[in-house]
């Protein structure tokens, strides 16, 4: 709820600020990924922190395999990210003058980026949940994981928002592929890393 509210307010704020002005593809892409990043951190770190604070993490550790917990949390986060990205995109392009010039590439980049975000923030949330200074730790752990991801995401979507030439399209494709590979790596390695983190 907090994440969704933040996303909507942020996009509406951008729309008001840029009223009747044309947003450049770079600015629009950067804004989109910054909003996605912050909404994911707000929502996804809570998935483990909430369990620790409510005292239900103990029950979960006793009855569930670590892989099952990881996949359950990660898949929920994945679906949430997809929905957030879809709503954000609709709002951003509906409320501003920005348009998408290459929908398949844009969708590929967005999906790969959301999958990577979901996997990375699931791991960060699990790492930080057991610490005393959780909020600061999520940020500290998240920066090296998430910055390359955001850079690739901006690269993937930026070139889909302006006119797309052959050279520009190939850059968008390589960024989108990079995001997909990042997502694959996170979900391939994540369960094993999570197993170590999940135990005290």
């Amino acid at each position: 709820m907090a994440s969704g509210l933040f996303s909507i307010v942020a996009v509406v704020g951008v729309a008001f600020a840029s009223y009747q002005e044309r947003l450049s593809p770079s600015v629009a892409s950067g804004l989109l990924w910054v909003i996605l990043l912050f909404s994911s951190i707000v929502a996804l770190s809570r998935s483990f922190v909430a369990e620790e604070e409510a005292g239900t993490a103990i029950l979960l550790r006793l009855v569930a395999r670590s892989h099952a917990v990881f996949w359950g949390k990660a898949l929920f986060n994945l679906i949430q990210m997809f929905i957030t990205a879809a709503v954000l995109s609709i709002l951003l392009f509906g409320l501003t003058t920005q348009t998408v010039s290459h929908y398949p590439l844009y969708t590929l980049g967005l999906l790969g980026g959301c999958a990577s975000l979901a996997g990375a923030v699931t791991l960060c949330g699990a790492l930080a949940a057991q610490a005393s200074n959780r909020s600061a730790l999520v940020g500290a752990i998240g920066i090296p994981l998430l910055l390359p991801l955001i850079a690739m995401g901006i690269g993937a979507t930026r070139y889909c928002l302006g006119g797309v030439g052959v050279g520009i399209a190939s850059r968008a494709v390589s960024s989108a592929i990079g995001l997909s590979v990042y997502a694959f790596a996170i979900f391939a390695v994540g369960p094993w890393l999570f197993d170590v983190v999940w135990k005290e």
Partner: protein
Amino acid sequence: MLSVEALGKRFGSRWVFRGIEFDLGKGDALIICGRNGSGKSTLLKILSGLAAPSEGTIKLPEGDRRTTIGLAALDMSAYAHLTVAEHLNFTATMRGCAPALEPLLERLGLADRRNQLAFELSTGMRSRLKLALAIQAEPDLLLLDEPGAAMDAAGRAIVEEVCAEQRRRGVLVVATNDPSERKLGNLELELVG
């Protein structure tokens, strides 16, 4: 079934306990007592596999820990928006064991609360739910942290029955400050902190 040698746990530079040793077989019930902060709950969590010791070795019952070890910890909570029955079905699914819903509900006096949300339960009833979740898979090792706390007389009678049943099946370890619960065990360990 449960063997512990030179067990110790520290947080930072402070040792909570050191040099704990015991060897429990089927039918044994160990009562762990000590003042607040002496490490009773910490020791239970180490025995359940939730926490790692700082030194020493533990030999736990063989098999999948999800079904061979049951723990009812003081700081463990149920999911507020699941009902009693949903909790038992959920943990059974996660553990891969039969839910044994009706027998457990009857035995723990929760039959008339089966459709009640966990956050609506009284403290005593939540303790019974925790106990039900701990014994659901009929574990070889049952760990109880102050099981009688917040329980009424009927609840304490249920705890005694569960403990007696556990001793017939396996090993029981109870951490308690209540002198009346010492009769649940045949062995005592006092942590001096």
